[in-house]
């Protein structure tokens, strides 16, 4: 009986979107069309009034953003699936691949229905509005702002680029509770957490009305007031250190606590079943991350090149520092350590990518490699939790490290870009490292608290509605057979 109820709830959660989508959208599309609401990223930016007609996006920028979008999609399917999948026992390989693929698809559908609108249109400082519900009013001609005045990209390209970010963030969480979670629980949690944590945090950090609105001090102040809360505060997060990594890591940590340890944790060996696949996944993640970080410049520009170079150098530095720490403290430099170091470096450089100089990125990578190594060893022991694939140890520790160090190395005195003043049209002359680090800490704390509280409530709701864990017998047999009715490998 309960089984049927579970299935029903998940099915309706999935079908809700599609069902509503076919019933309502037309009226909404037309309603939104004639409203001239200033959608943040859209053509309705105030400056468009005096600018000549509709801006035409640059073809190079458009091509770059679309290629980057595909790269970021590759980071989830298959890269994250392989990275995570290789780390579990072979009886759970397919369940991990399946969770990544299906959560990815689920978030894509939700993104089109309401995600994009709530994250990237004007609302209040925490949630966006409903102007782009069902992507109403987006045409091939609509444009989104970039970080340069008068430069636009197609809004559709911006929308899919951001969709890929939302999807990988939710998929990252999965690593904390693999090998014991119910598939229906994963899906239901994904819907709830995406809605109440990813969307508001993305809005708080990234939403702003675009540079064109900053014509003079007064207009700039007015425009800034419509931006997300942490953006207004001046938090720097180039490609998602808070929105993606800290956000997901905290949800993962809370999940590991609420879902509980795997059966036999600490007594039986939980050896990774294929570090080869983990290495393939980590390598694809690195390549995809060029799209993630350099694409976050939104333009094919020097800023994109800087982010690209930093993504290369910080990562390499973190590989070295992780294995050096491992070699010194544990005796042997391991393949898994090197791959984990790469991911740690990628995570840490994410918020910094377009803001710091190359030497700053190298230092960020070196520090992140060592700290994340501690995150999966010392810190993990202190937390006493089965965060199975170290989502918090790598993405949480790396994310916080990166967020704070972004505040340090963004300083022009340390080779960073400084903060661009769109009213003066120049880099602001004064950069106060201590003040910026304080702002970065506020952004980190906000994300930790927001994601932590939301995640905890979401897990409890899921537990009540469908239950979080499979039975012990199913867990011992493996989720591939018991949840999905198939096996990854023939003997």
């Amino acid at each position, binding site marked *: 009986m309960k089984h049927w109820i579970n299935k029903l709830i998940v099915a309706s959660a999935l079908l809700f979107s599609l069902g509503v989508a076919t019933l309502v959208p037309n009226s909404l599309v037309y309603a939104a069309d004639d409203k001239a609401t200033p959608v943040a990223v859209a053509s309705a930016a105030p400056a468009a009034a005096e600018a000549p007609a509709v801006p035409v996006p640059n073809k190079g920028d458009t091509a770059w953003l679309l290629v980057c979008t595909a790269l970021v999609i590759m980071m989830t399917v298959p890269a994250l699936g392989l990275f995570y999948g290789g780390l579990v026992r072979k009886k759970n390989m397919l369940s991990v691949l399946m969770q990544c693929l299906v959560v990815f698809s689920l978030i894509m559908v939700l993104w089109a229905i309401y995600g994009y609108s709530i994250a990237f249109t004007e609302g209040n400082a925490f949630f966006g509005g409903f102007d782009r519900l069902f992507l109403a009013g987006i045409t091939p001609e609509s444009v989104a702002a970039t970080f340069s005045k008068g430069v636009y990209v197609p809004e559709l390209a911006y929308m899919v680029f951001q969709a890929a970010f939302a999807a990988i963030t939710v998929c990252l969480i999965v690593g904390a509770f693999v090998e014991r979670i119910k598939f229906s629980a994963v899906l239901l949690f994904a819907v709830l957490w995406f809605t109440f944590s990813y969307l508001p945090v993305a809005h708080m950090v990234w939403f702003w009305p675009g540079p064109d609105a900053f014509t003079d001090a007064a207009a700039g102040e007015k425009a800034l007031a419509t931006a997300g809360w942490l953006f207004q505060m001046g938090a720097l997060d180039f490609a998602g250190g808070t929105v993606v990594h800290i956000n997901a890591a905290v949800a993962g940590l809370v999940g590991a606590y609420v879902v509980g340890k795997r059966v036999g944790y600490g007594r039986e*060996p*939980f*050896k990774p079943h294929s570090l080869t696949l983990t290495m393939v996944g980590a390598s694809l993640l690195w390549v995809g991350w060029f799209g993630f970080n350099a694409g976050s410049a939104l333009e094919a520009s020097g800023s994109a090149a800087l982010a690209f170079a930093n993504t290369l150098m910080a990562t390499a530095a973190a590989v070295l520092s992780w294995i050096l720490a491992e070699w010194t403290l*544990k005796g042997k430099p*391991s393949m898994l350590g090197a791959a984990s170091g790469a991911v740690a470096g990628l995570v840490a450089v994410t918020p910094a990518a377009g803001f710091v100089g190359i030497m700053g990125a190298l230092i960020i990578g070196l520090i992140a490699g060592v700290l994340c190594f501690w995150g*999966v060893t010392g810190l*993990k022991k202190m937390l006493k939790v089965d965060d199975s694939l170290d989502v918090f*140890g790598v993405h949480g520790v790396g994310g916080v490290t990166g967020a704070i160090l972004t505040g340090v190395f963004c300083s022009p005195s340390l080779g960073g870009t400084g903060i661009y003043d769109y009213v003066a049209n120049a880099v602001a002359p004064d950069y106060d490292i201590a003040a910026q680090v304080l702002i970065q800490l506020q952004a980190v704390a906000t994300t930790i608290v927001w994601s932590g509280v939301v995640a905890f409530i979401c897990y409890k709701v899921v537990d009540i509605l469908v239950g979080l864990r499979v039975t012990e017998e199913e867990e011992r047999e493996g989720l591939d057979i018991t949840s999905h009715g198939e096996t990854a490998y023939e003997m």
Partner: protein
Amino acid sequence: MKLIITIIKPFKLDEVREALAGIGVSGITVTEVKGFGRQKGHTELYRGAEYVVDFLPKVRVEVVVSDDMVDRAIEVIEAAARTGKIGDGKIFVTPVEQVVRIRTGETGAAAL
């Protein structure tokens, strides 16, 4: 006839095969096995988690030879498989009552 069962380090398989072929042994059977002896296991470290692996991978070689060849066979296996370090393996010898070549029906030493 005797059955010689030898447990060796996996990387020594080729040398053992060549040595046996060199004294005229015409067939062997090889299996990948796991076990422990005095060498014991080792520890593996995956990020923060340390696991003791009790069973080490070894190769088990089975060969049946006629009585007059037993000593020579043991000698060459021993020479080929030895590294002098712990974990080189063991050789077991047991009598074999009968051998049949399935294709022709030959029996005894003629079937080897």
